[in-house]
């Protein structure tokens, strides 16, 4: 259970393409292999059955053939009934080895010759045994013998005595010629009886070489490694096809009285198809044995072909399935890549929609989403600016500037009257400063105006610090007409006074210079004050680079100016610092050197 659920879990986590391939594989493989298996096993079983039937038929035909031959031999055992002298000989009372008369010799020899000539060439022996001691035995390569007696204990004899005159076929046994040569023969024996008295007269036994059976069997082929042979009633082998080794396990298999059939047996670890038929004439069994593998050779070829074809098909299907799976999931993978980009803030992406399936719809939705996202970002930004603007406006509105101007004008007038020129000068400059500062309606001013403002501010500061400040201003003519945003220099200078002079270090020298370098307007403010340590400098640089804070009320002057420049002109511009402890500080403002009113356009792009 756990394994299955872990398998399912594993499957769930697989890539989509892999899932598709796996599913395809199972969908192709499972039905194909199940169908292949069932089709082939069914086919094989049917084939085996058919082959078995066929073999059985062959055995029947074979047995029929043999029976024709056997019936012919069987008829020969009836011949004594047609020869009066032979019946008389059998009836006669004789001592063992009693000599025959010339007449008898002629009769018996003539009779035996008739049997030999009427029968097949393979009859090798004829024996006549009378109930009262008569005996006439002709064996191969021998003259007749009159001294032989029947073996009273012979199995066939006991069998024959119960058959009411019907003949008995005796399986292959050996007979010995008078010269000592051994001949394997099978025999047909018949009990002869007198019609008049109903008494038993004796027996006739005909011995036949099994070579004819052998020949008949050899003409039948069940397979390359077949074995065909004939067994008698007791399981002894009568004759077999060349090399056919009778198999003990099989003869025992057939002992249970069955007359014919097809069965299987394992011999030497090989499955064999065994078919057997019992002859009605001889009561012998014709047995055919063929290894099943031999018969099923063709079916194995078919199986292998099916398997090869199946594997090729599955292989092709799998290649196609792999191709398709990747083809289907390709746009999804593209989408994933685009999403990663968006995640990193790049909203300038778009998914190329090529088809209108689910993936196409997804791509379109993605595109819509990305465009909505960038729109929202801009809105947020604008809102923030406007909020700032509103704050400034509110600040401005807190003091009525006209009231201030008028008050300062009154102070100046009184001082004029009193003859205090310093107050007059200070008040007038202050008034001008205020006017410039508070007249925030103007978005762009010329650098000249900005420098004038700084000069006014410095005049006041000089008076405050009683000439401790050494302010120098240099500017090229071309720079003066440049348009800049207002109030960017004065905070820097104020910062220089705060940090350079208020700390009481240096000579209070502050220098301001403006120049144009390759369309860049550079404004440099230098002091010789306390300067900054390395850590403090890098801290401020970091703040300049990363802080999005516009400065606000508590804003640092430098930061405020920097942000305003960046917001107006872009990341390329802004403020940079150089300083060494006790060596003063150098602030460089970098702005585009713009002479025309081009701001409107730039601002639009920036939004």
């Amino acid at each position, binding site marked *: 259970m756990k394994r299955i659920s872990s398998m399912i879990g594993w499957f769930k986590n697989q890539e989509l393409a892999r899932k598709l391939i796996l599913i395809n594989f199972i969908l192709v493989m499972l039905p194909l292999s199940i169908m292949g298996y069932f089709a082939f096993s069914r086919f094989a079983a049917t084939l085996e059955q058919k082959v078995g039937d066929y073999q059985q038929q062959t055995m029947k035909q074979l047995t029929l053939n043999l029976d024709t031959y056997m019936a012919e031999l069987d008829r020969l055992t009836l011949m004594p009934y047609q020869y009066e002298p032979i019946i008389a000989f059998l009836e006669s009372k004789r001592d063992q080895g009693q000599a025959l008369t010339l007449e008898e010799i002629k009769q018996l020899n003539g009779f035996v010759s008739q049997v030999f000539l009427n029968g097949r060439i393979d009859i090798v022996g004829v024996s006549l045994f009378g109930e009262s001691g008569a005996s006439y035995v002709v064996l*191969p390569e021998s003259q007749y013998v009159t001294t032989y007696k029947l073996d009273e204990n012979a199995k066939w004899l006991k069998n024959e005595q119960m058959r009411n005159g019907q003949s008995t076929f005796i399986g292959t046994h050996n007979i010995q010629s008078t010269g000592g040569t051994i001949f394997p023969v099978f025999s047909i024996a018949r009990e002869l009886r007198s019609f008049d008295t109903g008494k038993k007269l004796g027996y006739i036994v005909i011995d036949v070489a099994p070579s004819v059976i052998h020949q008949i069997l050899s003409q039948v082929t069940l397979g390359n490694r077949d074995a065909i042979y004939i067994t008698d009633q007791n399981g002894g082998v009568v004759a077999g096809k060349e090399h056919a080794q009778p198999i003990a396990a099989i003869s025992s298999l057939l002992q249970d009285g069955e007359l014919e059939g097809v069965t299987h047996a394992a011999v030497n670890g090989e499955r064999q198809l065994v078919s057997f038929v019992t002859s009605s004439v001889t009561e012998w069994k014709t047995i055919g044995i063929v290894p099943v593998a031999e018969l099923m050779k063709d079916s194995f070829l078919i199986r292998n072909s099916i398997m090869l074809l199946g594997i090729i098909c599955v292989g092709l299907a799998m290649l196609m399935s792999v191709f398709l799976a990747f083809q289907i999931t390709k746009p999804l993978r593209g989408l994933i890549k685009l999403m990663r980009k968006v995640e990193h803030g790049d909203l300038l992406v778009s998914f190329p929609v090529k088809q209108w399936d689910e993936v196409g719809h997804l791509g379109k939705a993605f595109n819509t989403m990305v465009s909505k996202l960038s729109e929202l970002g801009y809105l947020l930004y604008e809102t923030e600016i406007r909020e700032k603007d509103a704050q400034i406006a509110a600040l401005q509105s807190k003091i009525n500037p006209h009231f201030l101007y008028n008050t300062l004008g009154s102070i100046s007038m009184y001082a004029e009257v009193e003859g205090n020129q310093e107050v007059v000068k200070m008040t007038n400059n202050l008034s001008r400063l205020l006017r410039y500062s508070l007249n925030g309606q103007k978005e762009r001013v010329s650098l000249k105006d900005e420098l004038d403002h700084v000069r006014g501010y410095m005049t006041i500061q000089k008076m405050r610090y009683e000439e401790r400040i050494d302010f120098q201003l240099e500017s090229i003519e071309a720079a003066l007409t440049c348009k800049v945003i207002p109030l960017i220099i004065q905070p820097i200078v104020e910062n220089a006074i705060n940090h350079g002079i208020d700390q009481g270090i240096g000579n209070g020298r502050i220098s301001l210079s403006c120049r144009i370098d390759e369309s860049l307007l550079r404004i440099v403010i230098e002091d010789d004050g306390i300067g900054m340590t390395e850590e403090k400098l890098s801290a401020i640089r970091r703040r300049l680079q990363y802080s999005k804070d516009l400065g606000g009320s508590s804003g640092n002057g430098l930061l405020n100016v920097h942000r305003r420049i960046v917001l107006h002109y872009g990341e390329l511009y802004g403020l940079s610092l150089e300083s060494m402890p006790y060596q003063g500080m150098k602030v460089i403002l970098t702005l585009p050197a713009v002479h025309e009113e081009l701001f409107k356009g730039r601002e639009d792009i920036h939004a």
Partner: protein
Amino acid sequence: MFIHRRGTSCLIYMIMALLLAALSGCASQDEEDHPQGEARAAAVKLEFWTPFSGGDNQFMTEMVNQFNKENPSIEVVQMNTRLDDYYSRLRTAIMSGSAPDLAILHQTSLPQFVQNGYIEKLTEPARQAGLDWKGFNANILESIVYDGNPYAVPLDTHALVMYYNKSYLRQAGLLDGNDMPMMSSGADGFHAFLKQLKASIPPDAAPLAQPSTRIDSVWLWWSLYNQLEGGGAFYNEELTETVFNNPKALKALDYTNQLYKQELIPPNINDSFKLFYDGKAAVLITGMWGTGAFEKAPGLDFGVIPMPVLYDHAAVWGDSHTIAIPTKLGMTDAKKAAALIFAKWCVEHGEMWAEAGHVPSMTKVVASEPFNSLKYRSAYAATANYVAYWPRHVRQWSIVEILIQEFEKMNYSQQTPEQTLENAAKRVNIELKK
């Protein structure tokens, strides 16, 4: 992803390759094994009928097996029948067109088969097989040539010889230092020899074993008749009448009859061969084909000499086994060629056949080391030179049958020798007029 895909296809290729290999493996396995059976099936099969019922059949079977082993392209299948039925069976087979491809014929019965072309002329097939007729014993060769054409390949000469049981002869004091029988010359000497034997051997043993029936007594008569000066005449010049009812023939027959009547040949003997084989006979006069079999008889100490000369000169009944090709529809040149190859092989391996006891037909075999190293055979090999064949007559075999029947009656004391010759001559004359 790319790596995964390559892995999958690699696996597929590997499986395919494996299966292909397995398939081809199966296929190649099927194509092996069945060489021997086919070679045997393609061989020219020759059916070979033989009439050997003495001890000689086993030697012929041995030769056939050896030949088959040495010549895989020819398979000779031997079929042996007892002599009693052999010729009627062969005649029937030839008349019904189902004759064997090869058959053993006795020289005596050749005329019967040469007539009407029942056996093939061998001039051409023998030339092709490279069989040199000049290699045969002249006496034998003559017997198979008709109108200048050879009709059979002579295999041997066989004649009557005298076998003797050394134990019985020694017992009777009739064996000399060389284990040779001691007998006075002439008919009387042989008679006395047998009488002396009869006196010393057990009563159930035969002094001379001869069957009462069948041809053996005719052979003996024919041999003795031919030993007489001026004897051996059978027909007149024109072959229209018999001339054997004469005093010389009667003299020989009377001598034979006396042996039976005085029970020097015991009555009612059926199988004289077996009698001697079993050690129940002191002397046996029969064909030389018994030698091989007697050599194999357990406990039999025997010797063999040529047929004794009882009368004027050496002569003995004899015959030859020959190999002939019966004429039939299905006889192809290929079969004829194969048959001649077999026949040639047989005569050239005469020493194998000589083991049965016969004298080989080829002079070079008789002179060869293997033949002369055989015991007994060389002792009677010269017999071939004075063999008295039956006269050449188309119906000789049936005429001899008449003699057998008449002689049997005499042996069973149903008629006298005079009556026997008279009756036989009468019947043969009738036969000749047919």
